[in-house]
């Protein structure tokens, strides 16, 4: 048994003695016999060295990203995080704390979250950010419910190109109140949203919100997004923005977004097989009482010193119960800390420089892949930053990626919904660039892709 449960000789008997009982059995007489269980079958305890050995053996069965030239991108990246970020996140005053219910004992976390909220406000051009949600997809779900509180209607419009996971999460969030999620078609050449479709849908007066993503599910930047708000009028516009892209792209609040959400994992959070992640949410100040999640506010203490506390709590589940704006309690505060430390270590100029560098490498790769017969890269005639879509004219994406993997290239991930009956359609792969991508990696990808396409051609 681990040392984590105190077992000083005589300690437990002293506790029992103080209670006047002989054993802890006397403390469980309120559990009826019929409800008791026997052995669970969990196995015997292991000592720390054995646990480390066992888990290391399991982890050795993984091939981490560093074993490959990786081009996995999209909402979840594999970007480098300066060591200083993990050093701060590893401070146990932060990571072993609970939600800051006692403000006076938790000023460090409260101030950090206030800085995090402020950063997302500056990046998005909106007024208020919350202290985080679970991830980008659930932030979209919360944004949907938020829009419904601001506007009547039953239909929520999203790009047809939205990643299938996000669409599925959104449909779940919509299902409770009986709302519908509908896809906005896109232009086949540019991937741009069909604004006429949006105009016609909004004219029917039943749309309560519209979501657009920048970059979109194809990794491309849709030039039509800034024009959406003039079509929507008082229908709320949600923009799902990649945080790094906001270092160079216009703040969505400046072109009429009412809500800006995002996935924050790229800012100092390791991929860790998909979690924990970080959901970002900002809105306008006049709507803050409809917002989901914890919010930190600035106030003063009894001596007039600046102090911080969780605020506007009457929106929340522990006060409002079934009428709360959201059920969220635990969020991703520690990841919010990583986000703000990352952005501050890299700095605003560093972020923009990084985004520009990724875009440059992405262009090199796309032109290399685009020169291969049988591949179309980039698939869409639209600007892009660090990600783009590759389309195969022959064979399946899985087969193509499998051939690349054997040459130590992770070539991206298929855009198709993997569920039976999921979206069929063309064989498209989302390709992404990271800091670690070198000129050599790019050449390796192009060579491996050419070989894969030729092999598929031979077997066909």
């Amino acid at each position: 048994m681990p040392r984590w449960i105190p077992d000083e000789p005589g300690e437990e008997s002293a506790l029992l003695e103080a209670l006047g009982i002989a054993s802890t059995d006397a403390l469980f007489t309120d559990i009826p016999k019929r409800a008791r269980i026997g052995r669970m079958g969990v196995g015997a305890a292991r000592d720390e060295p054995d646990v480390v050995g066992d888990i290391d053996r399991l982890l050795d069965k993984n091939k981490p990203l560093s074993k490959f030239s990786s081009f996995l991108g999209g909402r979840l990246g594999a970007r480098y995080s300066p060591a200083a970020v993990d050093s701060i996140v590893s401070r146990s005053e932060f990571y072993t704390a609970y939600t800051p219910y006692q403000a006076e004992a938790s000023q460090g976390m409260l101030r950090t979250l206030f800085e995090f909220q402020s950063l997302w406000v500056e990046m998005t051009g909106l007024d208020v950010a919350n202290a985080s949600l679970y991830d980008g997809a659930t932030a979209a779900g919360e944004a949907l419910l938020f829009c419904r509180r601001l506007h009547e209607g039953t239909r929520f419009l999203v790009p047809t190109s939205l990643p299938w996971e996000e669409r599925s999460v959104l449909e779940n969030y919509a299902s409770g109140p009986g709302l519908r999620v509908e896809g906005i078609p896109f232009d086949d050449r540019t991937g741009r949203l069909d604004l006429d479709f949006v105009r016609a849908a909004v004219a029917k007066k039943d749309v309560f919100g519209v979501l657009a993503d920048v970059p979109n599910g194809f990794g491309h930047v849709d030039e039509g997004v800034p024009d959406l708000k003039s079509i929507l009028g008082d229908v709320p516009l949600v923009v799902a923005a990649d945080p790094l892209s906001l270092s160079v792209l216009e703040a969505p609040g400046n072109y009429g977004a009412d809500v800006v959400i995002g996935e924050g994992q790229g800012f100092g959070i390791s991929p860790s097989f998909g979690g924990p992640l970080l959901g970002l949410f900002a809105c306008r100040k006049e709507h803050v009482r409809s917002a989901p999640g914890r919010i930190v506010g600035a106030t003063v203490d009894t001596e007039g010193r600046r102090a911080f506390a969780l605020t506007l709590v009457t929106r929340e589940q522990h006060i409002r119960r079934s009428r709360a704006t959201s059920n969220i309690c635990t969020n991703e505060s520690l990841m919010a800390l990583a986000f703000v430390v990352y952005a501050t270590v890299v700095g605003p100029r560093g972020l923009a420089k990084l985004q520009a560098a990724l875009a440059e490498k992405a262009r090199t790769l796309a032109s290399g892949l685009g020169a291969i017969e049988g591949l179309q890269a980039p698939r869409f005639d639209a600007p892009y930053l660090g990600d783009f879509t590759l389309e195969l004219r022959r064979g399946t994406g899985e087969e193509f990626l499998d051939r690349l993997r054997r040459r130590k290239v992770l070539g991206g991930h298929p855009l198709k919904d993997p569920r039976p009956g999921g979206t069929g359609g063309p064989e498209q792969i989302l390709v992404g660039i990271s800091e670690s991508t070198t000129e050599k990696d790019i050449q390796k990808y192009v060579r491996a892709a050419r070989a894969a396409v030729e092999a598929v051609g031979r077997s066909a």
Partner: protein
Amino acid sequence: MTFRQARWDEPAVWDLAPPRGADRPPEISGIPEKLRRKEAVRWPELSELEVVRHYTRLSQMNFGIDTSPYPLGSCTMKYNPKVSELLARRKGAAEVHPYQPEETVQGSLEILWRLERILARVTGLPEISLQPAAGAHGEYAAMLMVRAYFRDLGEIAERTEVLLPDTAHGTNPASAAMAGFTTREIPSKDGCVDLEELRRAVSKKTACFMLTNPNTAGLFESDILEIAEIVHGSGAMLYYDGANLNAILGITHPGRMGFDVAHLNLHKTFATPHGGGGPGAGVLAANEKLGPYLPVPRVVKKGRRFSLDYDRPHSIGKIKTAYGNFGLDLRAYAFILSHGEEGLRHISRRAVLNSNYVAARLGKHLPRPFRTLVKHEFVLSGAPLKERGLRTLDLAKRLLDEGVHAPTIYFPSLVEESLMVELPETESKRELDGYVAAVERALSDTTENLHAAPRSLSVTRVDEVRAAREPLLSWKDLRATGAKVETP
């Protein structure tokens, strides 16, 4: 003992190096002018050392389990083993992407699969999903599953109501409402579910009864088998809120008690760190009836190979990107391996022993509203403080001056001026006695001192009313009012 928290006059990060802004970010070819940012993000340009000092100083103005006992009831603030932190940062854990091909992530999949099999045994419910990001997220997913189940039975038009006791965590009614149900509270009797009230409330309209056992009063619902019978008698489902599982490991489990579906908080019972508010991990466990509705993908083993299975026609689909908070799943797995069968049972025995010991000692000073045999946590009433013109809040703030965290306060709401105390199995008798002594010192202190508390922290009592009345929610708000962070 005198306690003093660090009190840095630390400016906000933007006041360390006021940003000039205005610089236009570099142009990226193809990006049209209307989408180009006009000004760089307004944020300071600091040296790495300045950033590290800033956040290190902030960290020193924060309580954590590593600095102080943290007896928040229903939060199970136990020691977060360091070995779990070490393992979660291994390359093979942290630098693995969820969209890598399955052949390259067999280790991650095997860890998820093994953890699921263990949690099936711990809960007595065979079907597990690790996808939800937190307890409330698990509750919500479970309510969506209940909805899908009754839709398939053709009963959803009728089964519109979720019942819960008046002691339920606030997330329960909020999750049920988000999933489209109306909620109805069942009054408690002596801190437990009143069977007569439950019988009266259950009907063909009932979709589910949500319960935590032991409940938030720290009492085991001894009528649980009758409760299950009543609920199932109407065809409704019984949901287990696993926030309080720390009391019953290896002694009973949701499956044996008759629950159909449960969520567990890995960040409570299984010691993953709570991160100052999150991340959590809200495992879902279900029986054969509700198992088919769990989120996709499910982790499956075929021969010696592990894979992600999306072919679950009844599944509610996805409720989060990827497969859950793997970093926390790994920590919980290390925690469970370290304890083993006997260790898990010992956790609950010691947690309940600690709780009863502290309850007996503090019960000499403050009234205990219900029966005295409690599980992992207990409730006290601070009502007698009112005779001195004091409230539970004052006691809580005064405890902070002792260098210990306060209990959960004003919950459960059926107890006047309540305090909910939970000191889990990792606290030694010395720490328990220290906590009792701190409460005794606080109670015997002068009324004036209690009103003036806290005085040893980085700030004195925070004006939360003002925070809500005049919301200042970001730097942008502070700029608009000309306010600074370090001085008012």
